[in-house]
Protein backbone atom coordinates (compact mmCIF):
# COMPACT_ATOMS: atom_id res chain seq x y z
CA UNK A 1 0.00 0.00 0.00
CA UNK A 2 1.31 3.39 -0.98
CA UNK A 3 1.64 6.57 0.91
CA UNK A 4 -1.46 8.37 2.07
CA UNK A 5 -1.69 12.04 2.91
CA UNK A 6 -4.06 12.36 5.80
CA UNK A 7 -5.23 15.71 7.04
CA UNK A 8 -5.58 16.15 10.78
CA UNK A 9 -7.42 19.40 11.16
CA UNK A 10 -8.36 22.20 10.82
CA UNK A 11 -11.39 20.46 12.29
CA UNK A 12 -10.69 17.14 13.96
CA UNK A 13 -11.91 15.43 17.13
CA UNK A 14 -8.40 15.28 18.56
CA UNK A 15 -7.84 18.98 18.22
CA UNK A 16 -9.50 21.44 20.49
CA UNK A 17 -8.63 24.39 18.32
CA UNK A 18 -8.25 24.87 14.59
CA UNK A 19 -4.84 24.00 13.29
CA UNK A 20 -3.86 21.67 10.54
CA UNK A 21 -1.36 18.86 10.41
CA UNK A 22 -0.80 17.12 7.13
CA UNK A 23 0.47 13.68 7.90
CA UNK A 24 2.05 11.56 5.21
CA UNK A 25 1.43 7.97 6.15
CA UNK A 26 3.20 4.79 5.17
CA UNK A 27 0.84 2.17 6.52
CA UNK A 28 0.50 3.19 10.15
CA UNK A 29 3.83 4.99 10.24
CA UNK A 30 4.22 8.72 9.84
CA UNK A 31 6.67 9.48 7.06
CA UNK A 32 6.40 13.25 7.16
CA UNK A 33 4.37 15.83 9.01
CA UNK A 34 3.62 19.37 8.06
CA UNK A 35 2.13 21.98 10.37
CA UNK A 36 -0.12 24.79 9.24
CA UNK A 37 -1.40 27.31 11.72
CA UNK A 38 -2.92 30.73 11.51
CA UNK A 39 -6.62 29.83 11.56
CA UNK A 40 -7.21 31.74 14.74
CA UNK A 41 -5.85 35.12 13.83
CA UNK A 42 -7.56 37.90 15.66
CA UNK A 43 -5.21 40.81 15.10
CA UNK A 44 -4.52 41.37 18.77
CA UNK A 45 -1.04 42.86 18.35
CA UNK A 46 -2.29 45.40 15.84
CA UNK A 47 -5.40 46.05 17.89
CA UNK A 48 -3.26 46.80 20.94
CA UNK A 49 -1.67 49.69 19.12
CA UNK A 50 -4.97 51.52 18.84
CA UNK A 51 -6.15 50.98 22.39
CA UNK A 52 -5.08 52.41 25.70
CA UNK A 53 -2.98 50.42 28.14
CA UNK A 54 -5.99 49.78 30.33
CA UNK A 55 -7.97 48.42 27.41
CA UNK A 56 -4.98 46.37 26.22
CA UNK A 57 -4.77 44.75 29.61
CA UNK A 58 -8.10 43.03 29.05
CA UNK A 59 -7.45 42.34 25.41
CA UNK A 60 -4.14 40.64 26.22
CA UNK A 61 -5.84 38.64 28.94
CA UNK A 62 -8.11 37.21 26.27
CA UNK A 63 -5.29 35.94 24.10
CA UNK A 64 -5.77 32.60 25.76
CA UNK A 65 -8.51 31.07 27.81
CA UNK A 66 -6.32 28.80 29.88
CA UNK A 67 -3.24 30.91 30.57
CA UNK A 68 -5.04 34.26 30.64
CA UNK A 69 -3.28 35.32 33.82
CA UNK A 70 0.12 34.50 32.33
CA UNK A 71 -0.34 36.80 29.39
CA UNK A 72 -1.90 39.57 31.43
CA UNK A 73 0.84 39.43 34.08
CA UNK A 74 3.58 39.32 31.49
CA UNK A 75 2.17 42.34 29.68
CA UNK A 76 1.56 44.35 32.82
CA UNK A 77 5.02 43.60 34.17
CA UNK A 78 6.47 44.94 30.96
CA UNK A 79 4.39 48.11 31.16
CA UNK A 80 5.32 48.57 34.80
CA UNK A 81 8.97 48.15 33.95
CA UNK A 82 8.76 50.91 31.36
CA UNK A 83 6.84 53.18 33.72
CA UNK A 84 9.27 52.42 36.51
CA UNK A 85 6.56 51.26 38.90
CA UNK A 86 7.34 48.83 41.63
CA UNK A 87 4.22 47.16 42.85
CA UNK A 88 3.44 46.51 46.53
CA UNK A 89 4.64 43.22 47.94
CA UNK A 90 1.16 42.00 48.79
CA UNK A 91 0.09 42.61 45.19
CA UNK A 92 3.00 40.60 43.83
CA UNK A 93 2.16 37.76 46.19
CA UNK A 94 -1.44 37.71 45.00
CA UNK A 95 -0.31 37.77 41.38
CA UNK A 96 1.98 34.83 42.03
CA UNK A 97 -0.76 32.97 43.87
CA UNK A 98 -3.20 33.31 40.99
CA UNK A 99 -0.42 32.35 38.59
CA UNK A 100 0.30 29.15 40.48
CA UNK A 101 -3.37 28.26 40.82
CA UNK A 102 -3.64 28.77 37.10
CA UNK A 103 -0.73 26.41 36.54
CA UNK A 104 -2.50 23.80 38.69
CA UNK A 105 -5.69 24.11 36.70
CA UNK A 106 -3.85 24.07 33.40
CA UNK A 107 -1.80 20.98 34.22
CA UNK A 108 -4.87 19.12 35.49
CA UNK A 109 -6.65 20.08 32.31
CA UNK A 110 -3.72 18.79 30.29
CA UNK A 111 -3.72 15.50 32.17
CA UNK A 112 -7.36 15.04 31.27
CA UNK A 113 -6.83 15.90 27.62
CA UNK A 114 -3.88 13.53 27.43
CA UNK A 115 -6.03 10.79 28.93
CA UNK A 116 -8.73 11.45 26.39
CA UNK A 117 -6.31 11.40 23.45
CA UNK A 118 -5.17 7.89 24.34
CA UNK A 119 -8.72 6.72 24.98
CA UNK A 120 -8.39 6.75 28.78
CA UNK A 121 -11.56 8.66 29.50
CA UNK A 122 -11.71 7.70 33.16
CA UNK A 123 -8.49 9.59 33.83
CA UNK A 124 -9.93 12.47 31.83
CA UNK A 125 -13.07 12.62 33.94
CA UNK A 126 -11.23 12.30 37.26
CA UNK A 127 -8.67 14.97 36.58
CA UNK A 128 -11.28 17.37 35.29
CA UNK A 129 -13.42 16.68 38.32
CA UNK A 130 -10.45 17.55 40.53
CA UNK A 131 -9.75 20.59 38.43
CA UNK A 132 -13.11 21.92 39.58
CA UNK A 133 -11.63 22.45 43.06
CA UNK A 134 -9.04 24.85 41.77
CA UNK A 135 -11.55 26.49 39.43
CA UNK A 136 -13.84 27.11 42.39
CA UNK A 137 -10.94 28.56 44.34
CA UNK A 138 -10.07 30.86 41.46
CA UNK A 139 -13.70 31.93 41.14
CA UNK A 140 -13.83 32.62 44.86
CA UNK A 141 -10.65 34.72 44.81
CA UNK A 142 -11.19 36.64 41.60
CA UNK A 143 -14.86 36.35 40.74
CA UNK A 144 -14.64 34.36 37.53
CA UNK A 145 -13.40 30.97 36.46
CA UNK A 146 -11.43 31.80 33.35
CA UNK A 147 -10.53 35.44 32.80
CA UNK A 148 -9.59 36.48 36.30
CA UNK A 149 -8.99 40.18 35.55
CA UNK A 150 -7.11 40.37 38.80
CA UNK A 151 -4.19 42.40 37.46
CA UNK A 152 -4.13 46.08 36.90
CA UNK A 153 -1.25 48.37 36.09
CA UNK A 154 0.44 49.04 39.41
CA UNK A 155 -1.00 46.20 41.42
CA UNK A 156 -3.97 43.89 41.73
CA UNK A 157 -7.70 44.51 41.88
CA UNK A 158 -8.74 41.94 44.45
CA UNK A 159 -7.60 41.34 47.99
CA UNK A 160 -7.49 37.98 49.71
CA UNK A 161 -9.05 37.57 53.13
CA UNK A 162 -8.02 35.31 56.00
CA UNK A 163 -11.04 33.07 55.42
CA UNK A 164 -10.14 32.71 51.78
CA UNK A 165 -6.60 31.71 52.71
CA UNK A 166 -8.03 28.88 54.81
CA UNK A 167 -10.29 27.79 51.95
CA UNK A 168 -7.39 27.71 49.53
CA UNK A 169 -5.24 25.71 51.93
CA UNK A 170 -8.05 23.22 52.38
CA UNK A 171 -8.47 22.76 48.64
CA UNK A 172 -4.72 22.44 48.16
CA UNK A 173 -4.65 19.59 50.70
CA UNK A 174 -7.31 17.70 48.76
CA UNK A 175 -5.60 18.35 45.45
CA UNK A 176 -2.22 17.24 46.78
CA UNK A 177 -3.77 13.97 47.85
CA UNK A 178 -5.28 13.41 44.42
CA UNK A 179 -2.13 14.45 42.59
CA UNK A 180 -0.09 11.89 44.50
CA UNK A 181 -2.48 9.30 43.18
CA UNK A 182 -2.03 10.52 39.60
CA UNK A 183 1.75 10.32 40.00
CA UNK A 184 1.30 6.69 41.04
CA UNK A 185 -0.94 6.06 38.05
CA UNK A 186 1.58 7.64 35.70
CA UNK A 187 4.32 5.39 37.08
CA UNK A 188 2.34 2.16 37.35
CA UNK A 189 -0.57 1.74 34.95
CA UNK A 190 0.75 -0.52 32.22
CA UNK A 191 -1.52 0.50 29.36
CA UNK A 192 -0.82 4.17 30.08
CA UNK A 193 2.93 3.64 30.08
CA UNK A 194 2.86 1.51 26.96
CA UNK A 195 1.03 4.30 25.16
CA UNK A 196 3.25 7.11 26.44
CA UNK A 197 6.75 5.71 26.79
CA UNK A 198 9.03 6.17 23.82
CA UNK A 199 6.46 8.22 21.97
CA UNK A 200 7.34 11.62 20.50
CA UNK A 201 10.95 11.56 21.58
CA UNK A 202 12.69 14.91 21.69
CA UNK A 203 16.23 14.58 23.08
CA UNK A 204 18.08 17.37 24.81
CA UNK A 205 20.19 18.52 21.86
CA UNK A 206 17.10 18.82 19.64
CA UNK A 207 15.30 20.76 22.37
CA UNK A 208 18.10 23.28 22.39
CA UNK A 209 18.37 23.38 18.62
CA UNK A 210 14.67 23.99 18.05
CA UNK A 211 14.18 26.17 21.09
CA UNK A 212 11.40 24.19 22.79
CA UNK A 213 10.36 25.47 26.20
CA UNK A 214 8.37 24.54 29.25
CA UNK A 215 7.57 20.98 30.26
CA UNK A 216 8.63 19.76 26.81
CA UNK A 217 12.17 21.00 27.44
CA UNK A 218 12.24 19.96 31.08
CA UNK A 219 11.12 16.45 30.20
CA UNK A 220 14.31 16.16 28.16
CA UNK A 221 16.42 17.12 31.13
CA UNK A 222 16.88 20.79 30.22
CA UNK A 223 16.71 22.70 33.48
CA UNK A 224 14.99 25.74 32.10
CA UNK A 225 12.41 27.57 34.14
CA UNK A 226 11.94 31.32 33.98
CA UNK A 227 10.64 31.35 37.54
CA UNK A 228 14.12 30.30 38.62
CA UNK A 229 16.31 31.82 35.88
CA UNK A 230 14.71 35.22 35.58
CA UNK A 231 12.55 35.60 38.69
CA UNK A 232 9.56 37.90 38.58
CA UNK A 233 6.72 38.72 40.98
CA UNK A 234 7.33 36.88 44.25
CA UNK A 235 9.26 33.90 42.90
CA UNK A 236 12.62 35.19 44.11
CA UNK A 237 11.43 34.58 47.70
CA UNK A 238 9.98 31.14 47.03
CA UNK A 239 11.60 27.82 47.51
CA UNK A 240 10.83 25.19 44.89
CA UNK A 241 12.50 22.65 42.67
CA UNK A 242 12.68 22.80 38.91
CA UNK A 243 11.34 19.42 37.90
CA UNK A 244 13.20 17.66 35.15
CA UNK A 245 12.98 14.16 33.78
CA UNK A 246 15.19 12.13 31.50
CA UNK A 247 12.56 10.20 29.55
CA UNK A 248 12.41 12.90 26.85
CA UNK A 249 9.12 11.46 25.59
CA UNK A 250 5.43 11.94 26.29
CA UNK A 251 5.71 9.91 29.50
CA UNK A 252 8.43 12.29 30.65
CA UNK A 253 6.22 15.26 29.90
CA UNK A 254 3.39 13.68 31.88
CA UNK A 255 5.63 13.03 34.85
CA UNK A 256 7.09 16.54 34.72
CA UNK A 257 3.63 18.05 34.70
CA UNK A 258 2.19 16.02 37.56
CA UNK A 259 5.30 16.58 39.65
CA UNK A 260 5.19 20.28 38.88
CA UNK A 261 1.73 20.26 40.42
CA UNK A 262 3.30 19.18 43.70
CA UNK A 263 5.80 22.05 43.45
CA UNK A 264 2.94 24.45 42.79
CA UNK A 265 1.18 23.32 45.96
CA UNK A 266 4.41 23.96 47.82
CA UNK A 267 4.66 27.46 46.39
CA UNK A 268 0.99 28.19 47.14
CA UNK A 269 1.48 27.16 50.79
CA UNK A 270 4.55 29.37 51.13
CA UNK A 271 2.74 32.29 49.54
CA UNK A 272 -0.26 31.98 51.81
CA UNK A 273 1.80 31.51 54.96
CA UNK A 274 4.01 34.51 54.35
CA UNK A 275 1.75 36.95 52.57
CA UNK A 276 2.64 40.44 53.83
CA UNK A 277 0.11 43.12 54.73
CA UNK A 278 0.03 46.36 52.86
CA UNK A 279 -1.58 48.21 50.01
CA UNK A 280 -2.71 46.46 46.85
CA UNK A 281 -1.96 49.06 44.27
CA UNK A 282 0.26 52.02 43.47
CA UNK A 283 -1.06 54.83 41.36
CA UNK A 284 -0.18 54.32 37.73
CA UNK A 285 -0.05 57.10 35.16
CA UNK A 286 -2.38 56.88 32.18
CA UNK A 287 0.39 57.95 29.86
CA UNK A 288 3.37 55.62 29.98
CA UNK A 289 6.73 57.36 29.30
CA UNK A 290 8.58 56.42 26.14
CA UNK A 291 10.69 53.32 26.42
CA UNK A 292 10.77 49.63 25.77
CA UNK A 293 11.01 46.47 27.80
CA UNK A 294 10.79 42.76 27.38
CA UNK A 295 9.57 40.37 30.04
CA UNK A 296 9.54 36.63 30.34
CA UNK A 297 6.98 34.63 32.28
CA UNK A 298 6.80 30.92 32.93
CA UNK A 299 3.31 30.08 31.73
CA UNK A 300 2.02 26.54 32.31
CA UNK A 301 2.95 25.67 28.73
CA UNK A 302 6.40 27.22 28.76
CA UNK A 303 8.02 30.54 28.42
CA UNK A 304 5.88 33.50 27.50
CA UNK A 305 7.67 36.58 26.14
CA UNK A 306 6.12 40.01 25.85
CA UNK A 307 7.76 43.05 24.35
CA UNK A 308 6.24 46.50 24.64
CA UNK A 309 7.45 49.74 23.17
CA UNK A 310 5.81 52.92 24.35
CA UNK A 311 5.90 56.38 22.84
CA UNK A 312 4.78 58.58 25.70
CA UNK A 313 1.07 58.47 24.89
CA UNK A 314 -1.58 56.34 26.52
CA UNK A 315 -1.34 53.79 23.73
CA UNK A 316 1.58 51.47 23.09
CA UNK A 317 3.67 51.82 19.95
CA UNK A 318 4.18 48.11 19.55
CA UNK A 319 3.20 45.02 21.48
CA UNK A 320 4.77 41.70 20.68
CA UNK A 321 3.61 38.44 22.17
CA UNK A 322 5.52 35.21 21.82
CA UNK A 323 3.33 32.46 23.20
CA UNK A 324 4.95 29.23 24.42
CA UNK A 325 3.23 27.05 21.84
CA UNK A 326 4.93 28.87 18.97
CA UNK A 327 8.31 27.92 20.40
CA UNK A 328 7.28 24.29 20.78
CA UNK A 329 5.63 24.08 17.40
CA UNK A 330 8.87 23.80 15.51
CA UNK A 331 9.54 20.57 17.37
CA UNK A 332 6.22 18.95 16.44
CA UNK A 333 7.27 17.69 13.02
CA UNK A 334 10.42 16.22 14.53
CA UNK A 335 8.43 14.39 17.19
CA UNK A 336 5.79 13.07 14.79
CA UNK A 337 8.04 11.71 12.09
CA UNK A 338 8.77 8.03 12.43
CA UNK A 339 5.97 7.52 14.94
CA UNK A 340 2.60 5.85 14.53
CA UNK A 341 -0.59 7.50 13.35
CA UNK A 342 -2.13 6.42 16.64
CA UNK A 343 0.41 8.54 18.49
CA UNK A 344 -0.18 11.70 16.50
CA UNK A 345 -2.92 13.09 18.79
CA UNK A 346 -1.05 12.44 22.01
CA UNK A 347 2.20 13.85 20.63
CA UNK A 348 0.42 17.00 19.55
CA UNK A 349 -1.37 17.18 22.87
CA UNK A 350 1.87 16.64 24.78
CA UNK A 351 3.16 20.10 24.01
CA UNK A 352 -0.13 21.31 25.44
CA UNK A 353 -0.78 23.36 22.34
CA UNK A 354 -2.70 26.54 22.65
CA UNK A 355 -3.34 27.92 19.23
CA UNK A 356 -5.38 30.84 20.40
CA UNK A 357 -2.19 32.09 22.00
CA UNK A 358 -0.14 31.33 18.98
CA UNK A 359 -2.31 32.84 16.29
CA UNK A 360 -3.26 36.24 17.38
CA UNK A 361 -2.43 38.94 14.99
CA UNK A 362 -4.44 40.10 12.04
CA UNK A 363 -8.05 39.78 11.20
CA UNK A 364 -9.92 41.69 8.60
CA UNK A 365 -13.65 41.67 8.61
CA UNK A 366 -15.89 42.94 5.94
CA UNK A 367 -16.51 46.40 7.27
CA UNK A 368 -18.59 47.65 4.38
CA UNK A 369 -21.30 45.05 4.10
CA UNK A 370 -22.55 44.48 7.59
CA UNK A 371 -25.44 42.48 6.25
CA UNK A 372 -26.16 39.16 7.80
CA UNK A 373 -28.11 36.41 6.27
CA UNK A 374 -29.07 32.98 7.40
CA UNK A 375 -28.30 30.28 4.90
CA UNK A 376 -30.06 26.98 4.84
CA UNK A 377 -28.30 23.71 4.11
CA UNK A 378 -28.42 24.07 0.35
CA UNK A 379 -27.49 27.71 0.55
CA UNK A 380 -24.42 26.87 2.59
CA UNK A 381 -23.52 24.15 0.15
CA UNK A 382 -23.85 26.47 -2.83
CA UNK A 383 -21.84 29.09 -1.00
CA UNK A 384 -19.02 26.69 -0.28
CA UNK A 385 -18.92 25.43 -3.86
CA UNK A 386 -18.86 29.01 -5.08
CA UNK A 387 -16.12 29.89 -2.63
CA UNK A 388 -13.95 26.98 -3.67
CA UNK A 389 -14.53 27.78 -7.34
CA UNK A 390 -13.28 31.30 -6.70
CA UNK A 391 -10.20 29.78 -5.16
CA UNK A 392 -9.70 27.81 -8.33
CA UNK A 393 -10.78 24.47 -6.94
CA UNK A 394 -13.43 22.56 -8.77
CA UNK A 395 -14.98 20.19 -6.27
CA UNK A 396 -16.33 17.85 -8.93
CA UNK A 397 -12.83 17.26 -10.23
CA UNK A 398 -11.39 16.25 -6.92
CA UNK A 399 -10.75 12.57 -6.78
CA UNK A 400 -9.41 10.84 -3.73
CA UNK A 401 -6.24 12.11 -2.22
CA UNK A 402 -4.56 8.80 -2.79
CA UNK A 403 -1.86 8.41 -5.33
CA UNK A 404 -1.40 12.10 -5.89
CA UNK A 405 1.35 12.40 -3.37
CA UNK A 406 4.87 11.80 -4.59
Amino acid at each position, binding site marked *: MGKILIPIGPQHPALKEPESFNILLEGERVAAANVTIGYNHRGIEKACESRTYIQDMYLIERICGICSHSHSTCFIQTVEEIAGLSIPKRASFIRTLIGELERVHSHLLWLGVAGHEIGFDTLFMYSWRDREFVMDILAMLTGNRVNYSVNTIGGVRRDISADQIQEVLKAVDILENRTEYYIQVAYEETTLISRLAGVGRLPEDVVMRLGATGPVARAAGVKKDVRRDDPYAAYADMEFNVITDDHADVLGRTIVRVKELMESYKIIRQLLNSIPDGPLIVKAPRKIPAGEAVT*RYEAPRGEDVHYVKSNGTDMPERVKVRAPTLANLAAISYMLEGGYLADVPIVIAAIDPCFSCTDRMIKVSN*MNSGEESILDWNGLRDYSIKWYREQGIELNNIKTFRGEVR
Partner: protein
Amino acid sequence: MIDMEESLVKELTKKFVFLEGKCIITRERRISVEAPKKAFLDIIGYAASKLKFEQLCAITGLDAGENLEFIYHLANREGIMLNLKLTVSKANPEINTVTAVYNGAIFYERELEDLLGAKVAGLPREKHYPLPENWPEGQYPLRKDWKPDAVQQK
Protein backbone atom coordinates in the same frame (compact mmCIF):
# COMPACT_ATOMS: atom_id res chain seq x y z
CA MET B 1 24.68 42.43 40.94
CA ILE B 2 25.38 42.80 37.25
CA ASP B 3 28.88 41.30 37.09
CA MET B 4 27.87 38.55 34.76
CA GLU B 5 26.22 40.97 32.37
CA GLU B 6 29.30 43.20 32.37
CA SER B 7 31.64 40.36 31.66
CA LEU B 8 29.41 39.26 28.79
CA VAL B 9 29.47 42.75 27.34
CA LYS B 10 33.24 42.85 27.76
CA GLU B 11 33.61 39.58 25.91
CA LEU B 12 31.37 40.75 23.12
CA THR B 13 33.17 44.07 22.64
CA LYS B 14 36.53 42.31 22.71
CA LYS B 15 35.53 40.20 19.78
CA PHE B 16 33.62 42.93 17.92
CA VAL B 17 35.42 46.19 18.65
CA PHE B 18 32.92 48.31 16.73
CA LEU B 19 30.23 47.39 19.30
CA GLU B 20 31.99 49.56 21.89
CA GLY B 21 29.40 51.86 23.35
CA LYS B 22 26.54 50.14 21.61
CA CYS B 23 25.95 47.61 24.34
CA ILE B 24 23.73 48.84 27.13
CA ILE B 25 22.82 46.92 30.23
CA THR B 26 19.25 48.18 30.55
CA ARG B 27 18.63 46.42 33.82
CA GLU B 28 19.56 43.31 35.69
CA ARG B 29 19.64 40.40 33.22
CA ARG B 30 18.91 42.57 30.16
CA ILE B 31 21.54 43.58 27.64
CA SER B 32 20.65 45.58 24.60
CA VAL B 33 23.00 45.68 21.63
CA GLU B 34 22.66 47.65 18.42
CA ALA B 35 24.21 45.48 15.77
CA PRO B 36 25.22 46.67 12.33
CA LYS B 37 23.68 44.76 9.46
CA LYS B 38 26.81 43.51 7.77
CA ALA B 39 28.25 41.83 10.84
CA PHE B 40 24.91 40.68 12.19
CA LEU B 41 25.20 36.98 11.39
CA ASP B 42 28.70 36.88 12.90
CA ILE B 43 27.50 38.53 16.08
CA ILE B 44 24.48 36.30 16.51
CA GLY B 45 26.55 33.23 15.71
CA TYR B 46 29.16 34.26 18.24
CA ALA B 47 26.51 34.96 20.86
CA ALA B 48 24.93 31.58 20.28
CA SER B 49 28.05 29.47 20.26
CA LYS B 50 30.63 31.25 22.41
CA LEU B 51 28.50 33.29 24.79
CA LYS B 52 26.06 30.39 25.21
CA PHE B 53 22.91 32.28 24.34
CA GLU B 54 21.37 29.01 23.28
CA GLN B 55 17.80 30.08 22.98
CA LEU B 56 16.08 32.48 20.63
CA CYS B 57 13.02 33.65 22.55
CA ALA B 58 11.41 35.75 19.87
CA ILE B 59 12.02 38.17 17.06
CA THR B 60 10.16 41.44 17.37
CA GLY B 61 9.61 43.47 14.26
CA LEU B 62 8.98 47.17 14.56
CA ASP B 63 7.99 49.87 12.16
CA ALA B 64 10.28 52.78 13.07
CA GLY B 65 9.24 55.36 10.53
CA GLU B 66 11.72 55.16 7.65
CA ASN B 67 13.24 51.97 8.90
CA LEU B 68 12.24 48.56 10.05
CA GLU B 69 13.76 47.48 13.30
CA PHE B 70 14.17 43.86 14.30
CA ILE B 71 14.96 42.81 17.82
CA TYR B 72 16.29 39.31 18.36
CA HIS B 73 15.66 38.29 21.94
CA LEU B 74 18.27 35.75 22.93
CA ALA B 75 18.49 34.06 26.31
CA ASN B 76 21.01 31.92 28.08
CA ARG B 77 20.53 29.43 30.88
CA GLU B 78 21.33 31.98 33.57
CA GLY B 79 18.27 33.97 32.56
CA ILE B 80 20.18 36.80 30.94
CA MET B 81 18.53 38.20 27.87
CA LEU B 82 20.46 39.69 24.99
CA ASN B 83 18.39 41.94 22.75
CA LEU B 84 20.15 42.30 19.44
CA LYS B 85 18.77 45.17 17.40
CA LEU B 86 19.02 45.26 13.68
CA THR B 87 17.82 48.20 11.61
CA VAL B 88 17.16 48.10 7.88
CA SER B 89 15.55 50.65 5.62
CA LYS B 90 12.01 50.14 4.47
CA ALA B 91 13.10 50.62 0.88
CA ASN B 92 15.29 47.57 1.04
CA PRO B 93 14.06 45.48 3.95
CA GLU B 94 16.36 42.55 3.39
CA ILE B 95 17.74 40.53 6.29
CA ASN B 96 19.44 37.18 6.48
CA THR B 97 17.85 34.19 8.04
CA VAL B 98 19.14 32.98 11.38
CA THR B 99 17.70 29.50 10.96
CA ALA B 100 21.24 28.16 10.50
CA VAL B 101 22.02 29.25 14.06
CA TYR B 102 18.58 28.76 15.60
CA ASN B 103 16.68 26.04 13.76
CA GLY B 104 13.43 26.90 15.44
CA ALA B 105 13.37 30.49 14.17
CA ILE B 106 11.43 29.63 11.04
CA PHE B 107 8.01 30.65 12.35
CA TYR B 108 9.32 33.91 13.76
CA GLU B 109 10.90 34.87 10.48
CA ARG B 110 7.89 33.96 8.41
CA GLU B 111 5.89 36.19 10.69
CA LEU B 112 8.25 39.07 9.87
CA GLU B 113 7.82 38.39 6.18
CA ASP B 114 4.06 38.33 6.32
CA LEU B 115 3.32 41.08 8.76
CA LEU B 116 6.09 43.59 8.21
CA GLY B 117 7.20 42.86 4.67
CA ALA B 118 10.75 41.93 5.56
CA LYS B 119 12.62 39.98 2.92
CA VAL B 120 14.31 37.16 4.75
CA ALA B 121 17.06 35.80 2.53
CA GLY B 122 17.52 32.08 2.78
CA LEU B 123 14.07 31.26 4.10
CA PRO B 124 12.25 28.75 1.93
CA ARG B 125 9.21 30.30 0.27
CA GLU B 126 6.22 28.52 1.69
CA LYS B 127 2.58 29.20 2.27
CA HIS B 128 1.52 32.33 4.06
CA TYR B 129 1.91 32.34 7.79
CA PRO B 130 0.11 33.69 9.77
CA LEU B 131 -2.03 35.43 7.16
CA PRO B 132 -4.53 33.57 5.02
CA GLU B 133 -3.62 32.20 1.62
CA ASN B 134 -5.68 34.73 -0.33
CA TRP B 135 -4.01 37.70 1.34
CA PRO B 136 -3.12 40.34 -1.27
CA GLU B 137 0.51 41.02 -2.07
CA GLY B 138 2.17 44.05 -0.62
CA GLN B 139 -0.14 44.47 2.37
CA TYR B 140 1.84 44.42 5.60
CA PRO B 141 -0.49 44.84 8.53
CA LEU B 142 2.00 45.70 11.24
CA ARG B 143 3.34 48.70 9.36
CA LYS B 144 2.09 51.93 10.83
CA ASP B 145 0.64 53.26 7.58
CA TRP B 146 -1.51 50.18 7.07
CA LYS B 147 -5.21 50.45 7.75
CA PRO B 148 -7.59 47.51 8.06
CA ASP B 149 -9.82 48.81 5.26
CA ALA B 150 -6.91 48.48 2.81
CA VAL B 151 -7.97 44.89 2.40
CA GLN B 152 -11.50 43.99 1.49
CA GLN B 153 -13.00 40.61 1.24
CA LYS B 154 -13.93 39.81 -2.29
